[in-house]
Protein backbone atom coordinates (compact mmCIF):
# COMPACT_ATOMS: atom_id res chain seq x y z
CA UNK A 1 0.00 0.00 0.00
CA UNK A 2 2.82 2.33 1.00
CA UNK A 3 4.66 1.54 -2.22
CA UNK A 4 1.52 2.16 -4.29
CA UNK A 5 1.03 5.51 -2.55
CA UNK A 6 4.65 6.38 -3.28
CA UNK A 7 4.15 5.55 -6.98
CA UNK A 8 0.98 7.63 -7.10
CA UNK A 9 2.73 10.57 -5.51
CA UNK A 10 5.64 10.31 -7.92
CA UNK A 11 3.22 10.17 -10.82
CA UNK A 12 1.28 13.18 -9.66
CA UNK A 13 4.46 15.11 -8.94
CA UNK A 14 5.73 14.39 -12.44
CA UNK A 15 2.40 15.30 -14.01
CA UNK A 16 2.16 18.44 -11.91
CA UNK A 17 5.74 19.48 -12.70
CA UNK A 18 5.05 18.97 -16.40
CA UNK A 19 1.78 20.88 -16.28
CA UNK A 20 3.33 23.61 -14.10
CA UNK A 21 6.13 24.15 -16.57
CA UNK A 22 3.65 24.16 -19.49
CA UNK A 23 1.40 26.65 -17.72
CA UNK A 24 4.35 28.84 -16.80
CA UNK A 25 5.47 28.85 -20.41
CA UNK A 26 1.93 29.50 -21.65
CA UNK A 27 1.64 32.48 -19.30
CA UNK A 28 4.86 34.05 -20.50
CA UNK A 29 4.29 33.12 -24.14
CA UNK A 30 0.85 34.73 -24.09
CA UNK A 31 2.49 37.86 -22.73
CA UNK A 32 5.34 37.76 -25.28
CA UNK A 33 3.21 36.93 -28.34
CA UNK A 34 0.66 39.63 -27.46
CA UNK A 35 3.50 42.11 -26.92
CA UNK A 36 5.23 41.33 -30.22
CA UNK A 37 2.02 41.45 -32.29
CA UNK A 38 1.00 44.71 -30.65
CA UNK A 39 4.44 46.27 -31.02
CA UNK A 40 4.40 45.47 -34.76
CA UNK A 41 0.90 46.92 -35.13
CA UNK A 42 1.84 50.04 -33.15
CA UNK A 43 4.96 50.59 -35.29
CA UNK A 44 2.97 50.06 -38.50
CA UNK A 45 0.20 52.40 -37.39
CA UNK A 46 2.52 55.14 -36.20
CA UNK A 47 4.28 55.16 -39.57
CA UNK A 48 0.91 56.26 -40.98
CA UNK A 49 -0.02 58.74 -38.27
CA UNK A 50 0.70 62.32 -39.27
CA UNK A 51 1.72 65.09 -36.84
CA UNK A 52 -0.40 68.17 -37.49
CA UNK A 53 1.36 71.47 -36.88
CA UNK A 54 0.01 75.00 -37.03
CA UNK A 55 0.77 76.53 -40.42
CA UNK A 56 0.82 80.05 -39.01
CA UNK A 57 0.10 82.03 -35.87
CA UNK A 58 -3.57 81.64 -35.02
CA UNK A 59 -6.21 80.62 -32.53
CA UNK A 60 -8.14 77.37 -31.97
CA UNK A 61 -11.78 78.30 -32.53
CA UNK A 62 -13.48 74.96 -31.89
CA UNK A 63 -12.79 71.35 -31.01
CA UNK A 64 -15.66 69.17 -32.20
CA UNK A 65 -15.37 65.94 -30.22
CA UNK A 66 -17.46 62.85 -30.81
CA UNK A 67 -20.07 62.20 -28.16
CA UNK A 68 -22.95 59.72 -27.88
CA UNK A 69 -25.54 62.52 -28.09
CA UNK A 70 -24.24 63.49 -31.49
CA UNK A 71 -26.75 62.49 -34.24
CA UNK A 72 -23.81 61.24 -36.30
CA UNK A 73 -22.31 59.31 -33.39
CA UNK A 74 -22.55 55.95 -35.13
CA UNK A 75 -20.86 57.27 -38.24
CA UNK A 76 -18.16 59.11 -36.36
CA UNK A 77 -17.59 56.48 -33.66
CA UNK A 78 -13.92 55.66 -33.52
CA UNK A 79 -12.83 59.03 -34.85
CA UNK A 80 -10.91 61.62 -32.93
CA UNK A 81 -12.07 65.24 -32.70
CA UNK A 82 -12.08 67.77 -35.53
CA UNK A 83 -9.99 70.82 -34.62
CA UNK A 84 -10.70 74.22 -36.20
CA UNK A 85 -7.96 76.85 -36.22
CA UNK A 86 -8.33 80.41 -37.39
CA UNK A 87 -5.18 81.87 -38.93
CA UNK A 88 -5.98 85.59 -38.99
CA UNK A 89 -9.23 85.19 -40.90
CA UNK A 90 -8.38 81.99 -42.77
CA UNK A 91 -9.77 78.85 -41.16
CA UNK A 92 -8.37 75.35 -41.42
CA UNK A 93 -9.76 72.15 -39.99
CA UNK A 94 -7.97 68.96 -39.03
CA UNK A 95 -9.91 65.74 -38.75
CA UNK A 96 -9.55 62.59 -36.66
CA UNK A 97 -6.90 63.88 -34.28
CA UNK A 98 -5.70 61.81 -31.34
CA UNK A 99 -4.45 63.07 -29.03
CA UNK A 100 -5.16 66.79 -29.32
CA UNK A 101 -2.51 68.98 -27.72
CA UNK A 102 -4.46 72.26 -27.80
CA UNK A 103 -7.68 73.52 -26.26
CA UNK A 104 -10.45 75.84 -27.47
CA UNK A 105 -9.52 79.55 -27.66
CA UNK A 106 -5.85 78.71 -27.24
CA UNK A 107 -3.39 80.74 -29.32
CA UNK A 108 -1.04 78.69 -31.45
CA UNK A 109 2.21 79.67 -33.09
CA UNK A 110 3.72 78.46 -36.37
CA UNK A 111 4.80 74.80 -36.23
CA UNK A 112 3.17 74.23 -32.86
CA UNK A 113 1.97 70.62 -32.61
CA UNK A 114 -1.84 70.57 -32.66
CA UNK A 115 -2.35 66.81 -32.60
CA UNK A 116 -1.81 63.55 -34.44
CA UNK A 117 -4.02 62.74 -37.41
CA UNK A 118 -4.99 59.06 -37.47
CA UNK A 119 -5.89 57.14 -40.60
CA UNK A 120 -9.34 55.64 -40.60
CA UNK A 121 -10.98 53.14 -42.86
CA UNK A 122 -13.74 54.73 -44.89
CA UNK A 123 -12.84 58.26 -43.90
CA UNK A 124 -14.39 60.42 -46.60
CA UNK A 125 -11.56 62.92 -46.49
CA UNK A 126 -8.26 61.05 -46.80
CA UNK A 127 -6.34 61.92 -43.70
CA UNK A 128 -3.33 63.21 -45.66
CA UNK A 129 -5.59 65.99 -46.93
CA UNK A 130 -6.89 66.90 -43.53
CA UNK A 131 -5.73 70.46 -43.89
CA UNK A 132 -8.67 72.13 -45.53
CA UNK A 133 -8.39 75.77 -46.54
CA UNK A 134 -11.84 77.23 -46.04
CA UNK A 135 -11.31 80.63 -47.57
CA UNK A 136 -9.63 81.87 -50.71
CA UNK A 137 -6.34 83.65 -50.08
CA UNK A 138 -7.78 87.09 -50.93
CA UNK A 139 -9.97 86.69 -47.83
CA UNK A 140 -12.90 88.62 -49.34
CA UNK A 141 -15.65 86.17 -48.48
CA UNK A 142 -16.82 85.89 -44.87
CA UNK A 143 -15.59 82.80 -43.04
CA UNK A 144 -18.24 80.05 -42.92
CA UNK A 145 -19.66 79.25 -39.52
CA UNK A 146 -18.14 76.32 -37.64
CA UNK A 147 -21.43 74.42 -37.74
CA UNK A 148 -21.47 74.61 -41.54
CA UNK A 149 -17.88 73.35 -41.67
CA UNK A 150 -18.70 70.46 -39.33
CA UNK A 151 -21.70 69.51 -41.47
CA UNK A 152 -19.64 69.52 -44.63
CA UNK A 153 -16.96 67.38 -43.00
CA UNK A 154 -19.49 64.89 -41.67
CA UNK A 155 -21.37 64.49 -44.90
CA UNK A 156 -18.32 64.67 -47.10
CA UNK A 157 -20.01 67.33 -49.26
CA UNK A 158 -17.83 70.37 -49.65
CA UNK A 159 -18.59 73.55 -51.48
Amino acid at each position, binding site marked *: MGKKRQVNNNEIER*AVDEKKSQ*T*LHLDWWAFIVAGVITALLVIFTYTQVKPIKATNDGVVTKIDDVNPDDPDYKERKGEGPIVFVDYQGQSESYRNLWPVFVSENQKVTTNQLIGWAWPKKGLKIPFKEVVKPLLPKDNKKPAPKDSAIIDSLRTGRHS
Partner: protein
Amino acid sequence: MTGKKRNVIGFVLGLALLTLVGLISLYLSQVFNQVVKVNGLREILASEVVIAIVLGMLINNLIIDRIPKLAKFLEPGLEAFEFLLKLGIVFLGARIIASDLLRLGGIGLGMVVVEILFSIFFVVLFAKLFKLPEKLGSLLSVGVAICGVSAIIGTSGAIQAKKEEANYAIATILIFGAAALIIYPLIGRLLNMTQNLFGVWAGLAVDNTAESLATGKLYDQVLNSGNDIAFKAATIAKMCRNALMGFVILGFAIYYASKGMAKQIEHKGRFLWQKFPKFVLGFILFAVIASLGIFGPPESPLLSSLKSIEHWAFLLTFAGVGLRTRFGDMAKTGWKPFVVGISTEAAVAAFTLLMVLLLGRFLPRITG
Protein backbone atom coordinates in the same frame (compact mmCIF):
# COMPACT_ATOMS: atom_id res chain seq x y z
CA MET B 1 6.68 8.23 -37.09
CA THR B 2 8.69 9.60 -34.15
CA GLY B 3 6.88 10.82 -31.06
CA LYS B 4 7.97 14.42 -31.64
CA LYS B 5 6.84 14.42 -35.28
CA ARG B 6 3.50 12.91 -34.24
CA ASN B 7 3.10 15.64 -31.63
CA VAL B 8 3.76 18.38 -34.19
CA ILE B 9 1.26 16.92 -36.68
CA GLY B 10 -1.26 16.38 -33.86
CA PHE B 11 -0.75 20.00 -32.77
CA VAL B 12 -1.31 21.36 -36.29
CA LEU B 13 -4.37 19.17 -36.91
CA GLY B 14 -5.84 19.92 -33.47
CA LEU B 15 -5.38 23.64 -34.03
CA ALA B 16 -6.89 23.27 -37.51
CA LEU B 17 -9.92 21.56 -35.96
CA LEU B 18 -10.32 24.44 -33.47
CA THR B 19 -10.14 26.91 -36.35
CA LEU B 20 -12.62 24.92 -38.41
CA VAL B 21 -15.12 24.84 -35.53
CA GLY B 22 -14.61 28.61 -35.14
CA LEU B 23 -15.20 29.27 -38.85
CA ILE B 24 -18.31 27.07 -38.98
CA SER B 25 -19.65 28.83 -35.87
CA LEU B 26 -19.24 32.23 -37.51
CA TYR B 27 -20.97 31.02 -40.66
CA LEU B 28 -23.86 29.33 -38.79
CA SER B 29 -24.22 32.43 -36.60
CA GLN B 30 -24.86 34.55 -39.70
CA VAL B 31 -27.23 31.96 -41.16
CA PHE B 32 -29.28 31.64 -37.94
CA ASN B 33 -29.38 35.40 -37.61
CA GLN B 34 -31.14 35.63 -40.96
CA VAL B 35 -33.23 32.45 -40.81
CA VAL B 36 -34.57 32.49 -37.24
CA LYS B 37 -37.27 35.11 -36.88
CA VAL B 38 -38.35 34.54 -33.27
CA ASN B 39 -36.89 37.17 -30.96
CA GLY B 40 -35.10 35.65 -27.99
CA LEU B 41 -34.54 32.35 -29.76
CA ARG B 42 -32.60 34.06 -32.55
CA GLU B 43 -30.14 35.63 -30.09
CA ILE B 44 -29.42 32.23 -28.52
CA LEU B 45 -29.14 30.25 -31.75
CA ALA B 46 -27.18 32.95 -33.54
CA SER B 47 -24.69 33.33 -30.69
CA GLU B 48 -21.31 32.20 -32.00
CA VAL B 49 -20.33 31.30 -28.41
CA VAL B 50 -23.23 28.86 -28.13
CA ILE B 51 -22.58 27.39 -31.57
CA ALA B 52 -18.81 26.99 -31.01
CA ILE B 53 -19.28 25.26 -27.65
CA VAL B 54 -22.15 22.99 -28.75
CA LEU B 55 -20.41 22.07 -31.99
CA GLY B 56 -17.22 21.31 -30.06
CA MET B 57 -19.13 19.14 -27.57
CA LEU B 58 -20.83 17.20 -30.37
CA ILE B 59 -17.59 16.56 -32.28
CA ASN B 60 -15.79 15.50 -29.12
CA ASN B 61 -18.45 13.24 -27.66
CA LEU B 62 -19.68 11.68 -30.90
CA ILE B 63 -16.34 11.23 -32.66
CA ILE B 64 -13.06 12.10 -30.95
CA ASP B 65 -13.77 10.70 -27.49
CA ARG B 66 -14.87 7.37 -28.99
CA ILE B 67 -11.48 6.87 -30.65
CA PRO B 68 -8.88 7.10 -27.85
CA LYS B 69 -5.95 7.12 -30.31
CA LEU B 70 -7.44 10.06 -32.18
CA ALA B 71 -8.13 11.91 -28.93
CA LYS B 72 -4.52 11.41 -27.80
CA PHE B 73 -3.21 12.39 -31.26
CA LEU B 74 -5.17 15.68 -31.42
CA GLU B 75 -4.62 16.58 -27.76
CA PRO B 76 -1.60 18.91 -28.22
CA GLY B 77 -3.48 21.04 -30.75
CA LEU B 78 -6.79 21.06 -28.90
CA GLU B 79 -5.05 22.11 -25.68
CA ALA B 80 -3.71 25.15 -27.51
CA PHE B 81 -6.97 26.86 -26.55
CA GLU B 82 -5.49 27.47 -23.09
CA PHE B 83 -2.80 29.58 -24.73
CA LEU B 84 -5.37 31.33 -26.93
CA LEU B 85 -7.46 32.07 -23.85
CA LYS B 86 -4.53 33.81 -22.18
CA LEU B 87 -3.64 35.64 -25.37
CA GLY B 88 -7.25 36.79 -25.72
CA ILE B 89 -7.32 38.02 -22.12
CA VAL B 90 -4.14 40.09 -22.64
CA PHE B 91 -5.61 41.64 -25.81
CA LEU B 92 -8.94 42.26 -24.10
CA GLY B 93 -6.99 44.52 -21.71
CA ALA B 94 -6.63 46.96 -24.63
CA ARG B 95 -10.43 47.46 -24.57
CA ILE B 96 -10.67 47.96 -20.82
CA ILE B 97 -10.41 51.44 -19.40
CA ALA B 98 -7.85 51.49 -16.58
CA SER B 99 -10.20 53.46 -14.31
CA ASP B 100 -12.90 50.76 -14.79
CA LEU B 101 -10.31 48.13 -13.94
CA LEU B 102 -9.23 50.00 -10.83
CA ARG B 103 -12.75 50.72 -9.57
CA LEU B 104 -14.34 47.33 -10.32
CA GLY B 105 -11.10 45.50 -9.52
CA GLY B 106 -10.94 47.15 -6.08
CA ILE B 107 -14.49 46.17 -5.11
CA GLY B 108 -14.11 42.88 -6.98
CA LEU B 109 -11.06 41.89 -4.92
CA GLY B 110 -13.04 42.42 -1.70
CA MET B 111 -15.92 40.33 -3.05
CA VAL B 112 -13.51 37.64 -4.22
CA VAL B 113 -11.96 37.33 -0.74
CA VAL B 114 -15.44 36.82 0.76
CA GLU B 115 -16.35 34.36 -2.01
CA ILE B 116 -13.14 32.36 -1.50
CA LEU B 117 -13.60 32.12 2.28
CA PHE B 118 -17.24 31.08 1.87
CA SER B 119 -16.45 28.51 -0.83
CA ILE B 120 -13.60 26.89 1.07
CA PHE B 121 -15.60 26.75 4.29
CA PHE B 122 -18.62 25.28 2.52
CA VAL B 123 -16.77 22.69 0.46
CA VAL B 124 -14.61 21.50 3.37
CA LEU B 125 -17.77 21.20 5.51
CA PHE B 126 -19.61 19.21 2.85
CA ALA B 127 -16.59 17.03 2.16
CA LYS B 128 -16.49 16.13 5.86
CA LEU B 129 -20.22 15.43 5.94
CA PHE B 130 -19.89 13.05 2.98
CA LYS B 131 -16.66 11.60 4.37
CA LEU B 132 -14.62 12.44 1.27
CA PRO B 133 -10.83 12.11 1.63
CA GLU B 134 -9.57 15.37 3.19
CA LYS B 135 -7.28 16.25 0.30
CA LEU B 136 -10.02 15.65 -2.28
CA GLY B 137 -12.19 18.07 -0.31
CA SER B 138 -9.35 20.61 -0.36
CA LEU B 139 -8.86 20.21 -4.12
CA LEU B 140 -12.58 20.65 -4.75
CA SER B 141 -12.63 23.73 -2.55
CA VAL B 142 -9.80 25.47 -4.44
CA GLY B 143 -11.40 24.44 -7.73
CA VAL B 144 -14.71 26.00 -6.71
CA ALA B 145 -13.21 28.98 -4.88
CA ILE B 146 -10.63 30.10 -7.40
CA CYS B 147 -9.82 28.95 -10.82
CA GLY B 148 -10.91 25.44 -11.60
CA VAL B 149 -8.33 23.26 -13.25
CA SER B 150 -5.22 25.44 -12.80
CA ALA B 151 -5.84 25.86 -9.08
CA ILE B 152 -6.48 22.12 -8.62
CA ILE B 153 -3.28 21.21 -10.45
CA GLY B 154 -1.30 23.80 -8.50
CA THR B 155 -2.71 22.65 -5.18
CA SER B 156 -2.40 18.91 -5.86
CA GLY B 157 1.36 19.38 -6.21
CA ALA B 158 1.66 21.56 -3.14
CA ILE B 159 -0.33 19.26 -0.84
CA GLN B 160 0.84 16.03 -2.51
CA ALA B 161 -2.61 14.72 -3.31
CA LYS B 162 -3.22 11.45 -5.17
CA LYS B 163 -3.57 11.46 -8.93
CA GLU B 164 -7.10 10.06 -8.71
CA GLU B 165 -8.10 12.79 -6.26
CA ALA B 166 -6.87 15.46 -8.67
CA ASN B 167 -8.67 13.75 -11.57
CA TYR B 168 -11.94 13.52 -9.60
CA ALA B 169 -11.76 17.16 -8.65
CA ILE B 170 -10.91 18.30 -12.21
CA ALA B 171 -13.72 16.23 -13.77
CA THR B 172 -16.23 17.57 -11.24
CA ILE B 173 -15.20 21.17 -11.86
CA LEU B 174 -15.33 20.79 -15.65
CA ILE B 175 -18.83 19.32 -15.57
CA PHE B 176 -20.16 22.23 -13.53
CA GLY B 177 -18.32 24.70 -15.71
CA ALA B 178 -20.18 23.36 -18.75
CA ALA B 179 -23.49 23.37 -16.88
CA ALA B 180 -22.92 27.01 -15.84
CA LEU B 181 -22.91 28.06 -19.49
CA ILE B 182 -26.58 27.11 -19.72
CA ILE B 183 -27.85 27.76 -16.20
CA TYR B 184 -26.31 31.17 -15.43
CA PRO B 185 -27.63 33.09 -18.45
CA LEU B 186 -31.08 31.57 -17.81
CA ILE B 187 -31.05 32.81 -14.22
CA GLY B 188 -29.72 36.17 -15.38
CA ARG B 189 -32.61 36.54 -17.80
CA LEU B 190 -35.17 35.37 -15.22
CA LEU B 191 -33.92 37.95 -12.73
CA ASN B 192 -33.57 40.55 -15.47
CA MET B 193 -30.00 41.23 -14.37
CA THR B 194 -28.01 44.03 -15.96
CA GLN B 195 -24.96 42.99 -18.00
CA ASN B 196 -22.67 44.60 -15.43
CA LEU B 197 -24.10 42.66 -12.47
CA PHE B 198 -24.33 39.43 -14.42
CA GLY B 199 -20.72 39.73 -15.56
CA VAL B 200 -19.46 40.21 -12.03
CA TRP B 201 -21.55 37.25 -10.87
CA ALA B 202 -20.21 35.00 -13.67
CA GLY B 203 -16.66 36.11 -12.86
CA LEU B 204 -17.14 35.36 -9.16
CA ALA B 205 -19.03 32.08 -9.38
CA VAL B 206 -18.14 30.13 -12.54
CA ASP B 207 -15.10 27.98 -11.86
CA ASN B 208 -12.91 27.89 -14.93
CA THR B 209 -11.60 31.02 -16.60
CA ALA B 210 -12.69 29.98 -20.12
CA GLU B 211 -16.21 28.99 -19.01
CA SER B 212 -16.53 32.08 -16.84
CA LEU B 213 -15.67 34.43 -19.70
CA ALA B 214 -17.83 32.43 -22.13
CA THR B 215 -20.80 32.79 -19.76
CA GLY B 216 -20.35 36.58 -19.70
CA LYS B 217 -19.98 36.79 -23.48
CA LEU B 218 -22.99 34.54 -23.96
CA TYR B 219 -25.14 36.86 -21.84
CA ASP B 220 -24.08 39.86 -23.95
CA GLN B 221 -25.02 37.98 -27.11
CA VAL B 222 -28.29 36.61 -25.73
CA LEU B 223 -29.31 40.17 -24.84
CA ASN B 224 -28.22 41.27 -28.32
CA SER B 225 -26.61 44.24 -26.60
CA GLY B 226 -24.00 44.98 -29.24
CA ASN B 227 -21.39 45.54 -26.54
CA ASP B 228 -19.24 43.42 -24.22
CA ILE B 229 -20.15 44.77 -20.79
CA ALA B 230 -20.89 41.38 -19.15
CA PHE B 231 -17.84 39.85 -20.84
CA LYS B 232 -15.54 42.60 -19.59
CA ALA B 233 -17.02 42.60 -16.07
CA ALA B 234 -16.68 38.79 -15.90
CA THR B 235 -13.06 39.04 -17.02
CA ILE B 236 -12.14 41.65 -14.40
CA ALA B 237 -13.85 39.70 -11.59
CA LYS B 238 -12.27 36.43 -12.75
CA MET B 239 -8.80 37.99 -12.98
CA CYS B 240 -9.21 39.11 -9.34
CA ARG B 241 -9.93 35.48 -8.41
CA ASN B 242 -7.01 34.17 -10.44
CA ALA B 243 -4.65 36.70 -8.90
CA LEU B 244 -5.37 35.29 -5.44
CA MET B 245 -4.70 31.69 -6.45
CA GLY B 246 -1.18 31.63 -5.01
CA PHE B 247 -2.30 32.77 -1.55
CA VAL B 248 -4.95 30.03 -1.25
CA ILE B 249 -2.61 27.29 -2.49
CA LEU B 250 0.06 28.53 -0.07
CA GLY B 251 -2.50 28.41 2.76
CA PHE B 252 -3.38 24.79 2.00
CA ALA B 253 0.30 23.84 1.59
CA ILE B 254 1.15 25.31 5.01
CA TYR B 255 -1.84 23.56 6.59
CA TYR B 256 -0.90 20.11 5.23
CA ALA B 257 2.80 20.67 5.98
CA SER B 258 1.89 21.45 9.61
CA LYS B 259 0.12 18.06 9.75
CA GLY B 260 3.15 16.33 8.24
CA MET B 261 1.16 15.45 5.11
CA ALA B 262 3.13 17.64 2.68
CA LYS B 263 6.52 19.30 2.26
CA GLN B 264 7.32 22.62 3.94
CA ILE B 265 7.34 25.66 1.65
CA GLU B 266 10.71 27.33 2.16
CA HIS B 267 10.55 30.44 -0.03
CA LYS B 268 7.00 31.70 0.29
CA GLY B 269 7.56 34.83 -1.81
CA ARG B 270 8.99 32.79 -4.68
CA PHE B 271 6.13 30.28 -4.31
CA LEU B 272 3.54 33.07 -4.61
CA TRP B 273 5.26 34.50 -7.70
CA GLN B 274 5.41 31.02 -9.30
CA LYS B 275 1.68 30.55 -8.78
CA PHE B 276 0.74 34.04 -9.95
CA PRO B 277 -0.88 33.92 -13.42
CA LYS B 278 1.44 36.18 -15.41
CA PHE B 279 -1.09 36.89 -18.17
CA VAL B 280 -3.03 38.93 -15.59
CA LEU B 281 -0.07 41.34 -15.64
CA GLY B 282 -0.35 41.51 -19.44
CA PHE B 283 -4.09 42.24 -19.11
CA ILE B 284 -3.41 45.10 -16.68
CA LEU B 285 -0.50 46.44 -18.74
CA PHE B 286 -2.60 46.55 -21.92
CA ALA B 287 -5.42 48.35 -20.07
CA VAL B 288 -2.95 50.98 -18.83
CA ILE B 289 -1.34 51.43 -22.27
CA ALA B 290 -4.77 51.74 -23.92
CA SER B 291 -5.91 54.27 -21.32
CA LEU B 292 -2.82 56.39 -22.04
CA GLY B 293 -4.11 56.72 -25.61
CA ILE B 294 -1.15 54.94 -27.21
CA PHE B 295 -3.52 52.68 -29.17
CA GLY B 296 -5.41 55.70 -30.49
CA PRO B 297 -9.08 56.67 -30.16
CA PRO B 298 -11.67 53.99 -29.42
CA GLU B 299 -12.05 51.79 -32.50
CA SER B 300 -8.96 53.25 -34.11
CA PRO B 301 -7.46 51.02 -36.83
CA LEU B 302 -4.97 49.72 -34.29
CA LEU B 303 -7.60 48.89 -31.66
CA SER B 304 -9.80 47.34 -34.34
CA SER B 305 -6.94 45.04 -35.34
CA LEU B 306 -6.32 44.06 -31.71
CA LYS B 307 -10.06 43.44 -31.27
CA SER B 308 -10.09 41.14 -34.30
CA ILE B 309 -7.21 39.07 -32.93
CA GLU B 310 -8.90 38.96 -29.51
CA HIS B 311 -12.20 37.92 -31.10
CA TRP B 312 -10.55 34.99 -32.90
CA ALA B 313 -8.54 33.95 -29.85
CA PHE B 314 -11.73 33.77 -27.77
CA LEU B 315 -13.79 32.09 -30.50
CA LEU B 316 -11.22 29.31 -30.76
CA THR B 317 -11.08 29.15 -26.96
CA PHE B 318 -14.83 28.60 -26.79
CA ALA B 319 -14.54 25.91 -29.46
CA GLY B 320 -11.83 24.35 -27.26
CA VAL B 321 -14.15 24.47 -24.22
CA GLY B 322 -16.66 22.38 -26.18
CA LEU B 323 -13.99 20.05 -27.48
CA ARG B 324 -12.72 19.24 -24.01
CA THR B 325 -16.14 18.63 -22.44
CA ARG B 326 -16.69 14.90 -22.05
CA PHE B 327 -20.11 13.73 -20.93
CA GLY B 328 -18.45 10.46 -19.92
CA ASP B 329 -16.58 12.32 -17.16
CA MET B 330 -19.80 12.45 -15.16
CA ALA B 331 -19.62 8.71 -14.59
CA LYS B 332 -15.95 8.90 -13.64
CA THR B 333 -16.35 11.33 -10.75
CA GLY B 334 -18.30 8.97 -8.51
CA TRP B 335 -21.48 10.04 -6.76
CA LYS B 336 -19.96 11.51 -3.60
CA PRO B 337 -17.70 14.12 -5.24
CA PHE B 338 -20.57 14.83 -7.63
CA VAL B 339 -23.02 15.49 -4.78
CA VAL B 340 -20.46 17.61 -2.91
CA GLY B 341 -19.70 19.43 -6.17
CA ILE B 342 -23.34 20.15 -7.05
CA SER B 343 -24.22 21.22 -3.49
CA THR B 344 -21.27 23.59 -3.21
CA GLU B 345 -21.66 24.97 -6.72
CA ALA B 346 -25.30 25.74 -5.96
CA ALA B 347 -24.40 27.29 -2.59
CA VAL B 348 -21.57 29.41 -4.04
CA ALA B 349 -23.77 30.50 -6.97
CA ALA B 350 -26.58 31.52 -4.58
CA PHE B 351 -24.21 33.26 -2.15
CA THR B 352 -22.37 35.23 -4.85
CA LEU B 353 -25.65 36.11 -6.56
CA LEU B 354 -26.97 37.50 -3.29
CA MET B 355 -23.72 39.40 -2.72
CA VAL B 356 -23.80 40.89 -6.23
CA LEU B 357 -27.48 41.86 -5.95
CA LEU B 358 -26.96 43.45 -2.53
CA LEU B 359 -23.80 45.31 -3.48
CA GLY B 360 -24.94 46.00 -7.04
CA ARG B 361 -25.54 49.68 -6.42
CA PHE B 362 -21.91 50.14 -5.35
CA LEU B 363 -20.49 48.40 -8.40
CA PRO B 364 -19.16 50.78 -11.04
CA ARG B 365 -20.60 50.30 -14.52
CA ILE B 366 -18.13 49.01 -17.04
CA THR B 367 -17.78 50.93 -20.30
CA GLY B 368 -19.09 48.84 -23.20
